[in-house]
């Protein structure tokens, strides 16, 4: 198998696990990694990867085909542009950039230099999400009328303390950090979002950043939806608390999403479709039939990096390219804006 030569930039919370996972991806050869902090040298060399403190030196010296950007959000665009100019394909951790204008600059630079952008919304590679998309988009629920999402959990006290106290400030909270994943899932499974409204609250933790939000969405296909988001309540009704895709977090086997169509509804991630088997016995006075789906679970990160390798080789197009990642960011920022203005926001 032809391996693609990859460099990793940033060895923080996301970069470190990425380095470990990349070693397991048969299509990828993780050649080198860079971080401004020298402390990551031992870890990196322990994995048999060259370490650089200066990413520009890394991309100048190593013969790479693509890079993975796992640096703070505000550096996605400047570092991404430098790499694009070197002809390197870009895997950019989510969010694509810190705002829509910077996303546009990054997308333009990639296009000018003929490199691809893949945005790191790894949930699109979850077998559960792939199946939900197939069910909803494939019409198994009939016409989608709406959906409801709950992301309710308790971030422990230390999450907001010490070196991580930036998370208490605006922009560090559940809308930009966590909700963006839910939004990307929804866009991938259901289609484009055209209007948002949010009631946002910080009354529980009393931090500058929000802790809870009740959101209303309208989709281009006419469906409507609600998203309840809170990081300060003892609950497992969340992606993390039900799917088991984050091994560091506890999970049970409940549901966090409900999709409703004219012919059936889908409970996710239990993956149960509820429908009336007999059209003559359809209605609130009849029992629903429940059908399960067999799903083979695979590590979404491994699938995602394998996909990146094939994007670099030109055999696949990015499952989430720059423009697509920008739309997810735009919807998420619109929700934040609606919370601040108290008014609905229409997306262009």
């Amino acid at each position, binding site marked *: 198998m032809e391996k693609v030569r990859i460099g990793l930039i940033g060895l923080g919370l996301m970069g470190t696990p990425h380095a470990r996972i990349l070693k397991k991806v048969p299509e990828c050869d993780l050649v080198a990694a860079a971080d401004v902090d020298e402390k990551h040298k031992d870890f990196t060399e322990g994995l048999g990867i060259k370490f650089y403190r200066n990413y520009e030196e890394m991309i100048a010296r190593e013969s790479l085909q693509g890079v993975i950007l796992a640096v703070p959000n505000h550096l996605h665009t400047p570092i991404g542009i430098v790499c694009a100019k070197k002809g390197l394909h870009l895997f950019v951790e989510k969010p694509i950039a810190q705002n829509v204008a910077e996303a546009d600059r990054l997308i333009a630079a990639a296009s000018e230099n003929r490199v691809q952008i893949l945005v790191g919304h790894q949930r699109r590679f979850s077998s559960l999400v792939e199946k939900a998309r197939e069910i909803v988009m494939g019409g198994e629920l009939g016409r989608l009328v709406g959906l409801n999402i709950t992301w309710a959990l308790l971030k422990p006290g230390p999450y907001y303390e010490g070196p991580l106290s930036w998370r208490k400030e605006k922009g560090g909270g559940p809308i930009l950090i966590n909700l963006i994943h839910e939004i990307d899932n929804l866009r991938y499974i259901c289609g484009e979002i055209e209007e948002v409204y949010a009631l946002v609250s910080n009354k529980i933790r009393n931090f500058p950043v929000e802790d809870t939000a009740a959101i209303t969405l309208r989709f281009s296909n006419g469906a409507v939806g609600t998203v309840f988001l809170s990081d300060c309540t003892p*609950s497992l009704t969340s992606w993390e608390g039900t799917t088991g895709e984050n091994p560091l977090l*506890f999970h049970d086997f409940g549901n966090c999403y409900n999709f409703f169509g004219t012919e059936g509804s889908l409970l996710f991630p239990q993956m149960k479709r509820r429908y009336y088997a007999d059209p003559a016995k359809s209605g609130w006075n009849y029992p629903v039939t429940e059908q399960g789906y067999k799903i083979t679970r695979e590590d979404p990160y491994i699938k995602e990096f394998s996909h990146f390798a094939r994007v670099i080789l030109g055999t696949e197009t990015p499952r989430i390219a720059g423009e697509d990642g920008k739309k997810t960011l735009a919807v998420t920022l619109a929700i934040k804006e609606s919370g601040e203005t108290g008014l609905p926001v229409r997306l262009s």
Partner: protein
Amino acid sequence: MKKVRLGLIGMGMIGKLHAETMSRMKDIEFVAASDTAAKHQQTAEELGTKFYQSYEEMIAKEKMDGVVIAVPNELHLPVGAACAQKGLHILMEKPIAADLESADRLIEVARLNKVHLMVGHHRRHNPLIEELRNIVRGGQIGKLVGVTVLWSLYKPKDYFKAPFTWRAEPGGGPIRINLIHEIDNIRYICGDITRLYAEVSNEARQFPVEDTVSISLRIAGGAVANIFLTDTAPGNIGYEANTGENLFFYHSPVDCYHYYGTEGVVSFPGMKKFFYRDAAKAGWQFPLCEEGIKIDKEDPYTRQIRNFCGVIQGTETPKIDGVDARKTLAVTLAIQKSGETGQPVLF
């Protein structure tokens, strides 16, 4: 104590339920029932009560303390006013009236005639709802963070057929008929609603009336809530289907509400409380404890009539009076308005 003497006006779907309830209660006198349709005479006689085609004749001839009124919404005001003027206490089916102005006039006429006006939001009499209210208001889940409500019940095609074609027209849909119950529950359990926004859609059925609604609410005290409601998706998720309170609806024992607090979460009607036992091990990486809440079930319609009798005898206050029910109607109508204007509504 002397038995309370009650009459019934209107013997449609819900009126009949009241008739059956009252006929079963030994401690009241179910004096008479009326309906403009003569076909209900047989039902009345089977239930052992007198029948009138004219409610005016009934309230003129019979000596009664109070009446249960279950007539079409636009008749709530005229029928209610006539009864109030006769000095009869009133249990009015929900909604209190067809619009806010009629509600105000009905409240006023009851006040002037010194009769109690109670409104038939029967869910307030369900022990499950009472317990949920006690849990939330009693601080058992800490400070309330938010609420989610799901209501996805598929109305069969017959539901919209003659003589019920009005159900496909504006005003006959799930906001006015079904959502009003959800609003009243939230208000009863948590408190007043201060701000709301709704996305309203009729795209699935393509009827003039809505079929699907997504709502964001803010509740006094700071909590927020989401309600998702549709009457066009097979799901059997919703109060009627999940509580088993009315077995016309197929009983599907899943949860339709979650009340999220800082110290605990309650699911309804499963009535399970979730919490972290050890404060040092509280957070998303730790397992969560689950505890059942014991509740003795009791028929809310019977309890509602009993509350009405207690109100008449002066030993109880109404679970929901006219002023309170008017607020529930006002919020419900505001959801419709928000859907039409595309703007939030503030209270």
